[in-house]
């Protein structure tokens, strides 16, 4: 049902707008650049694409327009008629037809020109073909402009139509103009309809919603109807007529008893007669309004008679429907919208009547059974007196019994929490955690045990046989101490003889010498060049020395010396050392002296070399190189020494901020750089 989709119809652009939209889209969405030099097929393709694209877009847009607008035959006759009433069915159809034709024409144009473009032989020709095609399409649209405008108007109006559901419960209010229909509407619904003293204030249908017995009812307010022949009615009246004709609703015919609407009761009765055919099969209620101005009883006889006639007619409808012979209270009602007297009664009566009618209809329809199923519960009748209790397996019963027992027990057992509460609550009582300890003797539970003793963890030492082991240990210790004491006593035995002591002293001396030498060598190795042994810088590897050492060890060195000397004959150095040796042989007395002298001489000799002389083993090529090396070394330390620095790593600044640099004014210039 397309009832509410009137709001969703696409906007219909005007002719000019339409053309603009489509053409600009073509320009944007298709490639724009083409040159003469391209292959002809490419040129053709380019222009064909443009033409086709334009045609497609037109087609799309026009199709959406045509599809969106409702087809009058396909929608609910109420709407169909309403639309016909409002916007002439024929006009409407014509407009849409024109749009359709335009669409087909554009398609044809595109087809033709694409065919022509296939044989275009130059850029210019293709281009002009394309221009022609697009031009013709645009002309088609220009011709259709008035239809487009008309459709746009219709669309706007349709979007504002009230959303009436033709199938739901509806209450229709009709009557002469200015009778009080809109005020009634305002009273029972939330609709805010214009209420004015002049006639035809309401110019179209208005919908409001009201509730009765938890159901929603549509209340439709119609414009006033005048008593005229059918053909003379204007659009506004036709609206209400349509509504009356097509909607299955309860009808409230309003009657102004006081005549303040400007029409007499006779006229209103005449109207009633003329449209009573529309009230067929609809629950009808005659409502006498404005009773505050004129009460129903106070009417003149003629008027009363007319009213009663109307009532009789209404009763006929009533009888025709439900067959419930009731009194006329449900058919003729009085109220006053100004004083709100009887308004609710009217509403209730109308809703009630409508509901009854709808229910009856439903009951008669084929879908009855479906409805009935929804609120009927079948209860089987017992066929005999046999007891059939539910079957519960034994295990479940047992489990249930056990559970019940446990629950009972839980209730009986005293919890720690209860104990706490008894003894003063959480802050006062602290539960004894040692209560449930499992120990060999119960009186041990409250023992206070140290965990740490003298820097040891007691737990690490715990051992059931610790006493045994301790005993063993003490025995061991005793034994050891015994040994020591024995040693003490043994001491008086053999002491070292003086010769032995001398030997020991000698040994110790030698050992300490070795250590000293090693220490010296260790510390100076970095700063002195390590001369390999064969160069013998300090003259310690002489055969004479070897001889001395060997003899002190108790060996005869002569053979060793001879062997050494035989290997190194004819050397200058040897001869000089020989001289020393010869002196040595002469006497014991001189021996010592000479020994000392030779030692001192050898020492002095090692020290008194000229400064540039190269000692073999130092690594210099010649004395010139050595001199240069010494010079470089000195020059590197020269600047340092001038700065009074102890060495390379000495970065001490004696004064970090010397006053003469950081204070004082300048005679010219600024002092912002110091």
């Amino acid at each position: 049902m397309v009832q509410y989709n009137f709001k969703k119809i696409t906007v219909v652009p005007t002719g000019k707008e339409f053309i603009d939209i489509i053409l600009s889209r073509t320009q944007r969405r298709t490639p724009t650049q083409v040159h003469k030099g391209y292959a002809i097929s490419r040129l053709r393709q380019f222009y064909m694409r443009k033409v086709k694209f334009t045609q497609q877009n037109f087609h799309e847009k026009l199709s959406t327009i045509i599809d969106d607008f409702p087809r009058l035959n396909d929608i609910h006759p109420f709407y169909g008629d309403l639309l016909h009433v409002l916007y002439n069915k024929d006009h409407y159809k014509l407009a849409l037809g024109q749009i359709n034709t335009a669409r087909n024409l554009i398609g044809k144009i595109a087809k033709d020109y694409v065919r022509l473009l296939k044989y275009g032989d130059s850029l210019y020709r293709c281009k002009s073909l394309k221009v022609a095609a697009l031009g013709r399409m645009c002309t088609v649209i220009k011709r259709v402009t008035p239809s487009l405008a008309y459709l746009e108007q219709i669309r706007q109006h349709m979007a504002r139509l009230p959303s009436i559901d033709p199938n739901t419960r509806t209450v229709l209010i009709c009557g002469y103009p200015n009778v009080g229909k809109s005020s009634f509407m305002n009273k029972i619904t939330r609709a805010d309809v214009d209420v004015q003293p002049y006639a035809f204030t309401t110019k179209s249908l208005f919908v409001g919603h009201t509730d009765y017995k938890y159901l929603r009812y549509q209340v439709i307010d119609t414009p006033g109807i005048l008593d005229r022949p059918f053909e003379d009615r204007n659009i506004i009246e036709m609206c209400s007529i349509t509504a009356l004709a097509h909607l299955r609703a309860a009808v409230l015919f309003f009657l102004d008893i006081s005549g303040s609407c400007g029409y007499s009761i006779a006229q209103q009765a005449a109207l009633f007669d003329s449209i009573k055919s529309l009230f067929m099969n609809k629950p009808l209620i005659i409502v006498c309004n404005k009773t505050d101005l004129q009460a129903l009883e106070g009417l003149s006889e003629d008027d009363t008679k007319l009213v009663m006639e109307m009532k009789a007619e209404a009763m006929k409808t009533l009888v025709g429907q439900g067959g419930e012979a009731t009194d006329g209270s449900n058919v003729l009602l009085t109220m006053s919208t100004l004083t709100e007297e009887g308004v609710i009664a009217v509403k209730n009566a109308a809703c009630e009547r409508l509901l009854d009618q709808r229910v009856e209809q439903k009951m008669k329809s084929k879908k009855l059974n479906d409805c009935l199923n929804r609120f009927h519960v079948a209860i089987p009748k017992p066929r005999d007196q046999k007891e059939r209790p539910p079957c519960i397996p034994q295990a479940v019963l047992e489990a249930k019994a056990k559970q019940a027992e446990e629950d009972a027990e839980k209730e009986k057992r005293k919890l720690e929490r209860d104990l706490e509460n008894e003894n003063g609550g959480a802050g006062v009582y602290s539960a004894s955690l040692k209560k449930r300890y499992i120990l060999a003797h119960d009186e041990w539970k409250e023992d206070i045990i140290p965990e740490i003793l003298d820097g040891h963890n007691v737990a690490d030492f715990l051992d059931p046989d610790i006493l045994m082991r301790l005993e063993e240990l003490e025995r061991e210790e005793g034994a050891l101490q015994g040994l020591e004491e024995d040693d003490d006593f043994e001491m008086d035995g053999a002491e070292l003889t003086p010769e032995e002591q001398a030997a020991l002293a000698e040994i110790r001396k030698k050992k300490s010498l070795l250590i000293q030498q090693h220490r010296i060598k260790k510390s100076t190795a970095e700063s002195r060049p390590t001369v390999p042994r064969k160069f013998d810088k300090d003259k310690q590897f002489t055969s004479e020395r070897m001889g001395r050492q060997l003899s002190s060890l108790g060996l005869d060195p002569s053979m060793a010396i001879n062997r050494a000397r035989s290997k190194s004959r004819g050397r200058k150095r040897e001869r000089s050392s020989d001289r020393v040796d010869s002196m040595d042989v002469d006497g014991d007395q001189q021996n010592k002296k000479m020994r000392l002298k030779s030692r001192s001489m050898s020492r002095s000799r090692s020290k008194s070399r000229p400064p540039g002389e190269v000692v073999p083993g130092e690594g210099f090529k010649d004395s010139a190189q050595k001199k240069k090396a010494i010079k470089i070394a000195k020059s590197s330390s020269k600047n340092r020494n001038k700065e009074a620095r102890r060495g390379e790593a000495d970065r001490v600044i004696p004064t970090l901020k010397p006053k003469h640099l950081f204070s004082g004014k300048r005679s010219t210039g600024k002092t912002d750089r110091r």
Partner: protein
Amino acid sequence: MRLEKCWFCSSTIYPGHGIQYVRNDAKIFRFCRSKCHKNFKMKRNPRKVKWTKAYRRLHGKDMTQDSTFEFERKRNRPERYDRNVTENTLKAIKKIDKVRVDREHRHHTKRLTFSSLYCCNICDLDQLLTCFEKMDRMKPKKAQLRREAEKELEQSISMVKAPAAQQQDPSLTLPIKVKVSKPETVENRMEE
């Protein structure tokens, strides 16, 4: 509550002291004070840092193996409380400690005497003892000194006496010095 050992210096960490560092592989390093912690962060090896127990044990400065160490063993399962056992244990801890301390003392004296003997050439034991007293060191027993002196003499006699000489004269005394005979040179003859 447990007393832990510092990972770096092996001293005991009392509760409320030090820092624990847990590494990503879940190894826990405990430090007794920031000195150890900072050394650890510098990636120093405690076995090379002189004042740590690890160094001292490794270089034989402190006693390493002893039966007193076997009494202290970390248990992973707690034992059920037994009053008698605990009483005995508490008494035993004190005695074990005493024994251990005595043994360590002995170890230190043994060690120190030997090393300090290098420094002096005094052979007389009494003199040595007075020397020790003056140095304010632990005075070793006379017997110990004598024993060490004998050992040293026996082991190192080859420094002052050649093995050949030792064979000829098997006593632990200095050898008789052999006179060096001078061969006649040309110059000498000339001088003469």
